[in-house]
């Protein structure tokens, strides 16, 4: 059976059919997006950055971009309400749902708007950043997003302004979007000295085949502090392939946190450019991969200026026939002296059929740097299990406890308490063992 999307021009045709009235600069960038996609095509095994992803199902359909929003499935209401105290925007099938939005009075100097709205009224404020940062040459899906997005979010926080509550952006897929693609686009700009928390949530109904390709661009000004959390809970037949790009100015601090449990195929690429002296980035992620799921985190951390720090920690728990990939790059450019960069990846295999790939990579072109990476794959410690068993803890409970301890380390640094509790609950819900024991943890 020949794959529909292998002749990738179906997406090109779809692009040509669109008639948009947009400023010239944007049309150009969209054109560059579709060209980047045409050039790469759907990923295949011979593309180094995509060699473990089995796209089989994805190429069998032409996922047209959704043009109408369906209704939010009941099962997803709790997900949409995660972190109750927040400024919230909800999107269904890539389009904004006004009925779900909940924006209290924003502090002065903060603007949180839908991308389509900004584009309509004052497109010029976008020209400087939108679709300029995210790199498309290694990411066909981000290329598609650039070509097709219809809506999304623009969050601007002025210099020396602090957000009072986290901003929650929820992207849901409805039953109506079967075999469709959604391309949410987010632009976050933090002025000098600004401080903010953003939580981006992705979810969809179970048993539905769809494609979600979100792209987020973060521009962190000098001495700003941006904490970005991504919660990925797509439906078990959905595919989530997205990209987050962050550009850090002098002394900017970025904390990226990823929590991935859903999707049949899930992949997120974190690009972090430490572009000026003193920038700091912390990336951490937890992937819980069940039977038949594929989960993938790629990181591209580039030290482009001296005196920058970065720390990456990613942990995975794999069950059944799960497959996971962690591929992390630390790149230190020529002249980026005094770089301090660390990277850790730990994988816990709970089943003999689980497969973990771990590719920590270093590319170093400067001599006065401290770079280290470590990677481990293993099972639960027999001694620790034995200890718990000898204290009268049942086998399942003991396994659950130890796995929880392993994974919980990744949730500790989450600063938004409501989110941390939510993720913790999700985690313990997936673990074996008695509920009463889980109370203890």
């Amino acid at each position, binding site marked *: 059976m020949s794959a529909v999307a292998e002749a990738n021009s179906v997406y090109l045709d779809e692009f040509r059919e669109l008639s948009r009235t947009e400023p010239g600069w944007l049309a150009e960038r969209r054109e560059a997006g579709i060209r980047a996609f045409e050039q790469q095509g759907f990923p295949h095994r011979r593309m180094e950055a995509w060699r473990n992803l089995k796209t089989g199902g994805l190429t069998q359909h032409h996922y047209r971009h959704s043009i109408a929003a369906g209704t939010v499935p009941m099962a997803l209401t709790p997900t949409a309400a995660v972190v109750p105290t927040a400024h919230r925007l909800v999107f269904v099938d890539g389009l904004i749902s006004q009925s779900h939005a909940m924006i209290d009075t924003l502090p002065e100097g903060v603007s949180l708007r839908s991308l389509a709205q900004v584009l309509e009224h004052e497109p010029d404020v976008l020209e400087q950043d939108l679709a300029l940062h995210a790199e498309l040459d290694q990411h066909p899906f981000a290329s598609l997003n650039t070509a097709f997005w219809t809506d999304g979010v623009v969050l601007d926080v002025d210099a020396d302004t602090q957000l009072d509550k986290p901003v929650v952006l929820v992207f849901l897929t409805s039953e109506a979007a079967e075999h469709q693609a959604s391309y949410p686009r987010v632009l976050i700009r933090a002025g000098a000295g600004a401080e903010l928390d953003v939580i981006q949530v992705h979810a969809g109904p179970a048993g539905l085949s769809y494609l979600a390709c979100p792209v987020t661009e973060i521009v962190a000004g000098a001495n700003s502090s941006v904490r970005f959390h991504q919660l990925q809970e797509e439906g078990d037949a959905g595919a989530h392939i997205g990209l987050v790009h962050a550009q850090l100015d002098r002394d900017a601090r970025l904390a990226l946190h990823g929590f991935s449990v859903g999707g049949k195929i899930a992949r997120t690429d974190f690009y972090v450019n430490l572009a000026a002296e003193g920038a700091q980035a912390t990336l951490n992620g937890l992937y819980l991969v069940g039977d038949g799921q594929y989960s993938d985190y790629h990181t591209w951390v580039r030290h482009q200026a001296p005196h920058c720090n970065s720390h990456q920690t990613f942990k995975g728990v794999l069950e059944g026939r799960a497959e996971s990939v962690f591929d992390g790059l630390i790149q230190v450019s020529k002249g980026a002296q005094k770089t301090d960069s660390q990277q850790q990846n730990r994988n816990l295999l709970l*089943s003999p059929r689980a497969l*973990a790939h771990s590719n920590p990579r*270093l590319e170093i072109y400067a001599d006065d740097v401290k770079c280290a990476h*470590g*990677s481990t*794959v293993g*099972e639960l410690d027999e001694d620790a299990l034995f200890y718990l068993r000898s204290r009268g803890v049942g086998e399942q409970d003991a396994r659950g406890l130890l796995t929880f301890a392993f994974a919980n380390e990744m949730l500790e640094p989450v600063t938004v308490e409501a989110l941390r509790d939510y993720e913790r609950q999700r985690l313990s819900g997936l673990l074996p063992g008695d509920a009463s024991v889980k109370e203890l943890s």
Partner: protein
Amino acid sequence: MSASSDTINELTRKGYEYGFITDIEQESAPPGLSEDIVRFISAKKEEPEWMLEWRLEAYRNWLEMTPPDWAHVNYPPIDFQSISYYAAPKNQPKSLDEVDPKLLETYEKLGIPMHEREMLAGVSSGNRNVAVDAVFDSVSVGTTYKDKLAEKGIIFCSMSEAVREHPELVRKYIGSVVPRGDNFFAALNSAVFSDGSFVYIPKGVRCPMELSTYFRMNAGHTGQFERTLIIAEEGSHVSYLEGCTAPMRDENQLHAAVVELVAHQDAEIKYSTVQNWYPGDENGKGGIFNFVTKRGLCEGANSKISWTQVETGSAITWKYPSCVLRGDNSVGEFYSVAVTRGRQQADTGTKMIHMGKNTRSTIISKGISAGHGQQSYRGLVRVAPTASGARNYSQCDSMLIGDQCAAHTFPYIDAQHPGAHIEHEATTSRISEDQLFYCMQRGIGAEEAVSLIVNGFCRDVFKTLPMEFAVEAQKLLEVTLEDSVG
């Protein structure tokens, strides 16, 4: 480590010590590659029909392949039609006594003992002999201590001789570890390999001396394509050394070798390499392209294969000595020191494929990059679903000397068994000011201090080398790094 600075100075002046050319009558094949050339080489070697067929099949495979481009190295495309695939000294000796004195002189100059006298190579114990097979361009010019080894049933000879004298062994094992279509350069080698060493250790025999092959590229516009095959039968043990040098030439010469090791039950093979091909001048002109496929198969239970390599030469190195751990409880080891300076580029590492139960592997890789050197460690640790209790430990450290060089690490880990324990660590650093200061305030000169620190950095690997090689390797390292420290 205290080689006097006089030695260092003397050696530095020479730059690349082995860059001389031996003026000797040679015959060589016309440049270019075709089925005819493959037939010509096979005929030259008086090979049986099946060997020729095997070569031709490999050649046809090769025609359909493209050169790999995933390695982190840059080089202009190689014109495979401008290389001569066969070069040999005109007077082929019948025995060691008949070897052209000029050739013997060459090997003496290189410090290779070609006379079967009770000489010692670098150590004072006096009774350690090394049996040497010397390969000059495309042919083996002599093998020492053959009789003594034959007493124990050990076969140590050139590959061409093995094809003629022991066809059943060669036929059984050749291509069994590195199939002829394995990769672009292995396919090329399979088609045109000219010589190399063949070692067979019978059941239960511990080889009484180190076996060694010395490769010398002499002729211009040629490539060297040797093939080495080592078979260790049940319960046997062998330690094998390999050294290589080439003259200084402005052109890039291609060296595409294949090494296959087979260790049966309880057998152990230790394979050490000191690679010192001509690296090219400081502007990156000339030098050897070293594109080598080396792989060992731990076929039987409790077998062990250990690779040690010291890579200081070559303009470009592309080399991944690997272990396939098929037997239960088998062990794979990889110890490597790689130095790149000038415009050298190296992409080297290993693959450990765990298939048997309780298999263990250790990877220790030390990379030193100086000048404009580019260096990558690229490794793969794969644990198959059958490999319960597999263990791996990898450590890859890089040292950077100067701000124009680069060091990269690309380890791949694919684990498919929950009982597997895999650990990987890597660090990148430079010689710290504190260390240097400490040494210098104790009256140790800057250069010696650097040498001291570098040697300490490489110690884990050097201590696994046979004694003679360890001494040579340490010296080599000092000479190599000499002018890059400032």
